[in-house]
């Protein structure tokens, strides 16, 4: 009795499983993943709107067919292109894009599958990129703003900036990207896709230009090195000059002060002497004369005196 009931239950389960299995096999039931969208076709003819909601869905088995497409944001990564800029510089430009299938039906009808659309995207985006790059200068593709020019003085220390790089730009890299995006999206809707974003991933010089750039960089650095050296020499000479100047300044100032001091002292001495000697000029000249005798007459002197002199007058007579 017990076994019988269980057998029935089991039978039911197996039956359900068989039905489910059959439903899947024949295609009456299909699962749509969160990342997918589905277009149902009947003998190749689309039926209804694309199914974009995830979960379990039903369709007529055998005669209806489900075509799965991505619902997520998809990648496109182009091959690098060698493109000349407006100023005839050859550069490699590598762009990437992000796109989605917005109209699965149109997508199915126009390109069929993702493989098919990648080629179209190559054409669309590469040509838009080429147009954008060739009509702009190299700096406009490399730089995004005029930051370097505006903060040029702030850097101060290094002045080595190529003239070419100093060009003021009206459009920058992001503007180019939006040009490309806009242009690409003109053609994209016919494939049922929308290009959400185009970015310039890499810009590099082509090989021989790169070598020339290296040479230029080396030359610029050498120039900078030379600048530092001569700055050093200049500064050193300046300091030397300052030494000479300060030296003169110091010695002449000292000389001046010394002269002033000496002069004042001399003047004071003169006034002191004058004050004293003025009291009796005659006596002063008498004293001074006597003093000079003491100083001038020595063992080399020959003195010739007459008996008329005060000293020898007694030689002749006493009563004078």
């Amino acid at each position, binding site marked *: 009795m017990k076994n019988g009931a269980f057998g029935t239950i089991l039978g039911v389960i197996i039956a359900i499983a068989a039905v489910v299995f059959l439903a899947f096999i024949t295609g009456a039931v299909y699962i749509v993943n969160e990342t997918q969208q589905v277009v149902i076709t009947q003998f190749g003819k689309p039926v209804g709107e694309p199914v974009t909601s995830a979960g379990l869905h039903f369709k007529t088995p055998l005669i209806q067919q489900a075509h799965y497409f991505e619902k997520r944001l998809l990648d496109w990564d182009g091959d690098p292109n060698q493109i000349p800029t407006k100023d005839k510089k050859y550069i490699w430009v590598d762009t990437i894009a992000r796109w989605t299938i917005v109209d699965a039906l149109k997508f199915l009808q126009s390109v069929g599958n993702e493989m098919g659309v990648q080629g179209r995207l190559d054409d669309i985006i590469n040509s838009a990129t080429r147009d954008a790059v060739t009509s702009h200068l190299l700096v406009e593709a490399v730089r995004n703003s005029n930051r370097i020019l505006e903060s040029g003085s702030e850097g101060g220390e290094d002045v080595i900036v190529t003239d070419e790089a100093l060009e003021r730009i009206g459009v920058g890299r992001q503007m180019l990207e939006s040009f490309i995006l806009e242009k690409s999206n003109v053609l994209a809707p016919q494939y049922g896709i929308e290009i959400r974003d185009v970015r310039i991933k890499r810009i590099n010089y082509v090989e021989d230009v790169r070598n020339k750039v290296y040479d230029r960089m080396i030359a610029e650095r050498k120039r900078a090195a030379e600048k530092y050296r001569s700055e050093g020499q200049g500064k050193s000479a300046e300091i030397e000059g300052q030494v000479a100047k300060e030296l003169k300044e110091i010695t002449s100032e000292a000389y001046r002060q*010394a002269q002033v001091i000496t002069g004042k002292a001399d003047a004071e001495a003169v006034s002191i002497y004058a004050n004293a*000697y003025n009291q009796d000029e005659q006596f002063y000249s008498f004293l001074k004369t006597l003093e000079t005798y003491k100083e001038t007459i020595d063992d080399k002197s020959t003195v010739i005196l007459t008996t008329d002199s005060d000293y020898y007058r007694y030689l002749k007579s006493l009563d004078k």
Partner: protein
Amino acid sequence: MSFDNVPSPDEIIDVGKKKLGDAWKYIPWFIGIFLLLGAARGMIYSIGPDEVGVIQRFGKYAGLSSPGLHAKIPFGIDKVTPIKVEKVFKEEFGFKTMQAGVRSRYGRGDYLDESLMLTGDLNILDVRWIVQFRIKDAVKLMFATRNPLNNIRDISEVVMRRFVGDYSVDEVLTVKREEIDDLSQQEIQRILDSYNVGVQIVTVKLLDVNPAEKVKPAFNEVNEAKQEKEKMINQAWEAYNKVIPKARGTAEKTIREAEGYAIDKVNRAKGESERFLATLKEYKKAPEITKKRMYLETMAEVLPEAREKYIIDKEQGSILPLLDINKKGGER
């Protein structure tokens, strides 16, 4: 212990037959248990402590499950994808770590395509950097973009190149590195958010930034020249320091000497004038005799010093009648 109940061989075979017959009855049970086990195996799943499980029922998103043991509907109806939401992932640009560790080994591969970029002043730099990120929204990560990692890598390159393209070589090499790190982080986040990638950029960090191999010596030369410049300036200041303080000392000496001279001069003047005044004062008491005395004393002092003395009579016209007073000691 008793051996009474030990069955005979016949009995054993009989029992075996009976059991085999019973076994047929149990086959549905076996199938049931087998299915149950299978179901049970598919019904239970666990989510690690640093993970979150994204549940999809028939492909449709049906919720998140937190860390721990959980049940789900088996047979592929419920599908759970564990996503590591705590872990910080790292992406490397321009290099590859072969083996991380105390001394990490780095691949020697050529990643120049990735690392060479143009600076705003149209020079070429070899830039290596890392981007660290965390998954902040597992649902977006799984359903919004097909290739989240590719998005992160591509956008990191796009943004880094754009910023390096806006700075000069020297800025990227030295002072503006952190600024570029910060700005790139914000910008990468902004773009990835617009894609709904569902990741949080934790860090963007510039690692090695070098001039290309070929131009490195020239860059080094600049650094050497800078050093040289500093050296020359230092040497010049050294010379300055050698000369100027000494000169100041000498100048001070000159001034002090002048001051000394001044003091000397004035003091002498004062002394001499005081002496004169003192003498004068006494002289005035008896001028005639004092004058005479002073004169004669001086003569007495001076004349012996002279080598030759000639005293000539005033009436004598020639020099013949000369008197040699030396021999007489020149005294009166």
